[in-house]
């Protein structure tokens, strides 16, 4: 389909091309956004969405092409140029400054100043507060929050600050790059409301999302990208998820997820022996008396709002953070380990959240990233790394997990998010774990990669492993888990068992409702 010719377009991007050191990230891309519309940008990882957004936001300059806003040709060389034209961007990666207060963050680069005329040098925090106070309050940020350094906030609250920051300046064009990642359903919906309200106020929005389900009823137009090129634009009302998936990946949606339908029955199995048990584990104020157990062949989901202590639980199990009381038993034996390396040796492994910063070792190669957690396996005499066998192992994983790279010696940084995540999973599998912990395993990766990662988790468990999955998306947890534990404020507040059976009985909504209610702390209806 062709890009709809939109003479009334507000923003027109024509023929934009961007090459990074020989790699073509965008090739002759067109985009046209009408006034007051929510325009979704879709595409797999590496399709070029982020690059286009970076171009519009002034983070990178295009090699060729033009950008026109309201008929005026724009030269966007740096972020401040974009801001000056009313183009505001909420990047997928938070762009907040930890050392600054919420207020200073919101007004960073656009500070209001007071003082005698011609000498307006003093920051006018009073006016700034006044201006943003009510907006902030709507998103649950108190006055005190405005004065606290952002570094003290959790991920969710940071995301909220980021959104308030974007909304505070009445943008003409608001670009949202995966704005809901890490948000709970409630906040997600609050944001959607705002997006609608902005549209009603004649603001156009460009919205990048991997969650096709979010589009319907919200977005007006969707433009699909593939391999750095525009596939086409389509009114959202005229399309379906399957249609979009096909455009994004050039294959039918059923091919992506079909095979798993057959696997579903095997999920309903008797749990095997207990592998991991936690008894009354506490850690400061973030974990309180958590007791749980995980069995062979089981996927245990952990649900909870951000800040409920899910990641902290994973870190405590892995020995990254020291627990203050309680005990951890592995295969029935108590383990006391002060460091994650000990846990890896004993058969635990973890795929951390925030892949880019906590998962990958960006400057190391794919092979090196795979072997790092179990160097013993590829070393001679216990300390000399055998590069040959290291590469051979990596090669095996590359094939078996279809990690898309021609060379396992390439730096992992250069892979797409989904492939990076597969490498991290390979790293964990390489330690022959009996328990594998996944913390937000599919955050920021595209639909097809997500399916692949889910399959990896299921395969691992099917082969006799045990998995703990932490995910903010309740839907993802329900899809994967046999059993879900819900956390709130560092405690376990509930357990939902028999999920596969419930799904087989079409009781999805009931399960979802229970999880959400427990996590939010409301009484179960």
């Amino acid at each position: 389909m062709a890009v709809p010719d939109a003479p009334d377009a507000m923003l027109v991007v024509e023929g934009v091309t961007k090459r990074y050191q020989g790699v073509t990230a965008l090739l002759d891309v067109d985009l046209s956004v009408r006034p007051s519309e929510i325009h979704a940008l879709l595409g797999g990882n590496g399709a070029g969405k982020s690059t286009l957004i970076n171009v519009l936001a002034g983070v990178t300059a295009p090699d060729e092409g033009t950008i026109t806003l309201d008929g005026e040709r724009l030269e966007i060389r740096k972020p401040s140029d974009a801001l000056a034209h009313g183009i505001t961007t909420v990047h997928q990666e938070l762009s907040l400054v930890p050392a600054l207060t919420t207020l200073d963050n919101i007004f960073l680069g656009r500070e209001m100043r007071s003082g005698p005329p011609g000498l307006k040098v003093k920051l006018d925090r009073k006016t700034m507060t006044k201006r943003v106070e009510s907006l902030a309050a709507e998103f649950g940020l108190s006055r005190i929050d405005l004065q606290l350094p952002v570094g003290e906030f959790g991920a969710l609250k940071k995301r909220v600050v980021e959104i308030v920051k974007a909304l505070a300046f009445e943008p003409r064009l608001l670009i949202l790059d995966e704005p809901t990642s890490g948000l709970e359903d409630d906040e997600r919906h609050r944001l959607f409301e705002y997006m609608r309200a902005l549209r009603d106020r004649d603001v156009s929005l460009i919205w990048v999302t991997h969650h096709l389900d979010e589009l319907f009823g919200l977005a007006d137009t969707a433009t699909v990208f593939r391999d750095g090129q525009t596939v086409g634009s389509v009114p959202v009302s005229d399309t379906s998820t399957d249609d979009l998936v096909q455009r994004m990946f050039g294959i039918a949606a059923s091919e992506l997820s079909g095979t798993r339908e057959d696997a579903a029955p095997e999920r309903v199995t008797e749990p095997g022996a207990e592998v991991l048990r936690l008894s009354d584990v506490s850690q400061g104020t973030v974990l309180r008396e958590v007791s749980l157990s995980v069995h062979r062949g089981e996927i245990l989901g952990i649900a909870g709002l951000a800040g409920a202590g899910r990641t902290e639980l994973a870190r405590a199990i892995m020995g990254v953070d020291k627990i203050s009381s309680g005990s951890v038993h592995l295969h029935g034996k108590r383990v006391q380990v002060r460091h994650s390396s000990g846990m890896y040796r004993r058969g635990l492994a973890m795929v951390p959240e925030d892949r880019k910063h906590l998962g990958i070792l960006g400057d190391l190669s794919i092979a090196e990233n795979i072997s790092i957690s179990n160097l013993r396996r590829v070393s001679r005499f216990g300390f000399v790394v055998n590069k040959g066998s290291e590469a051979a192992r990596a090669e095996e994983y590359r094939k078996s997990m279809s990690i898309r790279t021609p060379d396992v010696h390439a730096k992992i940084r250069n892979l797409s998010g989904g492939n990076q995540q597969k490498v991290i999973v390979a790293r964990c599998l390489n330690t022959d774990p009996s328990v594998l912990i996944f913390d937000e395993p599919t955050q920021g990766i595209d639909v097809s990669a997500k399916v692949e990662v889910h399959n990896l988790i299921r395969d691992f468990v099917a082969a006799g492993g045990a998995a703990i999955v932490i995910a903010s998306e309740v839907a993802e947890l329900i899809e994967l888990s046999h059993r879900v534990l819900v956390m709130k404020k560092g405690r376990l507040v509930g357990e939902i068992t028999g999920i596969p059976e419930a799904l087989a009985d079409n009781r999805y909504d009931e399960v979802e409702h229970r999880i959400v209610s427990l996590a939010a702390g409301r009484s179960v209806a």
Partner: protein
Amino acid sequence: MRSGSRLMRILGTTGVPIAIALVIVILVFQVLSPVFLRPSAVSNYLNNGIPILLITVGVAFVIVGGGIDLSIGTVAGLSAGMTIWAVGAGMPTPVGVLVGVATGLVFGVVNGFVITQFGINDFIVTLATLNVAGGLLIVLSENVSLRGVNAPGLASLTQGSTLGIPTSFWIAVVIFVVMQFLLMRTVFGRRLFATGVSSEAATLAGVEVRRVRFNTFVISGVLAGAAGVLLASRLGAVQAFLGMGYEFTAIAGAVLGGVSLAGGRGSVWAAVVGGLMLATLQQGLRLNGVDPVYFSIVTGLAIVTGVVFDRQAQRLVLRRNVGGGPAQAVGAHPVAPEASHARETGVKS
């Protein structure tokens, strides 16, 4: 294309651009002053340069792990003093050598312990131990004589020659080879790189980051101790201010060779090449009769051009190389120059 890209990859290896520059500089100096490559001059040059090269290699380990060690200079001085003291007190040479190396080891352990266990910034801790080691040498030199020691065994470490080349050269080569092996081929080295790239991510991948960092300070301390022993051997006597200021030369040499202050990038041989470059410049200027007041300017210029040159070479290679394979995920920008710069500010907390 194939051979071209291989050439490019070699050029892009850390330290290679500087090594090429080093060869050019040596040739230029040889043309300017024919004595430059005369055996006696080369032997002097090696003997003078090797102690600092050892320190450079030691600090390179710390830097690759994302840290910094400022105490190395005065620790080397103190180790030299302890060696002379031990030998002067009648202990056999091997014991003297051990005493010197052990002194460095003690400082490495103290540095590593305080930094990793208390989580205190390494710049400040090692600045403090710099003062402590320097002070101890002064106290030592006031209380015992660190001169007039007749120790042929100790002296033979640097003044003797094996196969016509100074013994200290062989000692250094062995140490460098072992260290290069340790860094590039062993489990420890791999963990060290992981730590330097991202200590958080390395922790989560099961690397005992604290222990790795602790070990880097121990290595740095031990090599400073070894450097002290060679200094003692060459000088035959120790003066109270020995080693002061060596730390900056060593760090500059390592960085010039391509060891990144942000951590996670570098190699022993690159550090050695960078250190040799500084030593060569100094020796070359000296043999051409340039007043040392110009040295600091020339050295400053060399560092600036060297680091810029290295960066440009890397960038060029990246650009040329990337065209080669579809390995690069489209849109995943391999090097966001701004982002990588952000880490490169030199010292991390």
